[in-house]
């Protein structure tokens, strides 16, 4: 569904097989063939002196949804924010290790370009105090887009499954929308600059089940053109909406596997205890 104006340059994407555990399922076997969007190795992250992520190694395949689950404070949102260097906005934070996006070290990338390529959607919808149209057009304007804005705004709103609901009110304030519509508007805004990756930090935690289902359906359709990493506390959502799931605990990555495998036959007893609610 990517617009012709935004043909992506993925030719340099890595094609390196991730580590596959013994006894991995069919889907994990297929992951061997999948192109990798992110390759994270030996990632340590610190808030000042406090370490929040420990020696994390993870490969994130392209055009798949990877879910991060784990108890509060386990480091999943911290890890997510590393992927587009959003943590740099926090004073005294730093990381060591390597994060490669399509084989390129993100540390060496221009941060504005990185965040264009790796968009983010937050827990609470955060539309700008502007019209629906301007919310979507904003990112395009600051990226110096010279084409027909209205076409791309429509395209983005369609990709976010919001167009039919707002096409007659494009110049109304974004705040007039419901919570679920605002969240889809934020997704449309992120999609407008045609990112290769969308990071979603608990995007449905403030939404009702019907709107949550719309967002999950949207994620399913976006996979054609986008890689997604979602942090969620809702294990049913991780089970429904993701292809791969990573379980984190106390800053460590405990287990990463096919979602179907992890939720039926986890290999680590801590994962088992967490997902069956027998934690601690």
């Amino acid at each position, binding site marked *: 569904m990517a617009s012709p104006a935004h043909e992506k340059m993925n030719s340099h994407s890595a094609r390196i097989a991730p580590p596959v555990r013994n006894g991995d399922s*069919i889907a994990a*076997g297929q992951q061997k063939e999948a192109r990798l969007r992110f390759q994270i190795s030996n990632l340590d992250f610190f808030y000042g002196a406090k370490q929040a992520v420990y020696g994390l190694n993870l490969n994130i395949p392209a055009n798949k949804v990877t879910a991060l689950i784990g108890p509060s404070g386990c480091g999943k949102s911290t890890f997510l924010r590393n992927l587009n260097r959003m943590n740099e906005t926090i004073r005294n934070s730093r990381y060591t290790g390597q994060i490669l996006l399509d084989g390129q070290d993100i540390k060496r990338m221009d941060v504005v370009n990185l965040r264009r390529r790796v968009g983010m959607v937050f827990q609470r919808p955060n539309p700008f105090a502007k019209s629906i149209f301007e919310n979507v057009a904003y990112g395009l304007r600051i990226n110096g887009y010279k084409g027909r804005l209205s076409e791309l705004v429509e395209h983005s709103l369609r990709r976010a499954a919001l167009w039919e609901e707002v096409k007659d009110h494009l110049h109304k304030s974004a705040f007039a929308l419901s919570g679920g519509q605002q969240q889809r508007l934020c997704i449309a805004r992120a999609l407008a600059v045609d990112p290769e990756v969308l990071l979603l930090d608990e995007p449905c935690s403030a939404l009702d089940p019907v709107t949550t289902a719309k967002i999950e359906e949207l994620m399913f359709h976006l996979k054609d053109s986008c890689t997604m990493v979602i942090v969620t506390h809702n*294990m*049913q959502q991780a*089970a429904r909406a993701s292809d791969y799931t990573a379980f984190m605990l106390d800053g460590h990555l405990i287990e990463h596997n096919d979602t179907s495998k992890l*939720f*039926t*036959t*986890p290999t680590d007893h801590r*994962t*088992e205890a967490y*997902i*069956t*609610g*027998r934690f601690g």
Partner: protein
Amino acid sequence: MERHFVHDLDELKQRLLWMGSLAERAVHQAVHSVLDADEHLAESVLSEEDAINEMQIEIDDRVQRLLALQAPMAADLRFLLAVSRINGDLERIGDQAVNVAHSAMRVLRHPQVKPYVDLPRMSELAESMVRDSLNALVRGDQDLAQSVLQRDDQVDRLRDQLFRELLTYMMENSAVVFAAFELIMVAKNLERIGDHATNIAEDVIYFIAGRDVRHPALDRR
């Protein structure tokens, strides 16, 4: 604090074991109505069939409710899937016992064809398979479940042996054809009970280890 769900799972297991004990008793009584020439045992099997069928519906309802309301994961999910399948196998074991009871009533109208040697062995083997597959579930004992799978071949061999032997009796004396045929049907039903016990053991291994051992020849890449 123990979650209510854990209590529900335990209660479900107890109900399944109770159903297992009913099915096991039905098999024992049905075969012994032949071996001991006791028609009352066969009548008892027929009268208790409804209890097993009612248990099947009750257990299905419990499984459906827990799947819908608790959205179980990992071992809990595997347990519920295994219970759902075991439930069906136990009900079928009850049906096989009823078939044996019907055969027993017909066999008892005729003089005994031969001394019963293989039939008690076969019955003990099939009953032990049912018992041990359920014990494996209770104890989480994968080795015990595996041993049930291995016993299935012995039951099959005994059925073939009994079939050949009864065939010779039928060829020698046409007067015993009717009773001998019913004994072959008893053996056939015991063999099917062994198959159901094997299914149960496979489900128990799936529950314990997450391994699907049902069709080893299939290439599951």
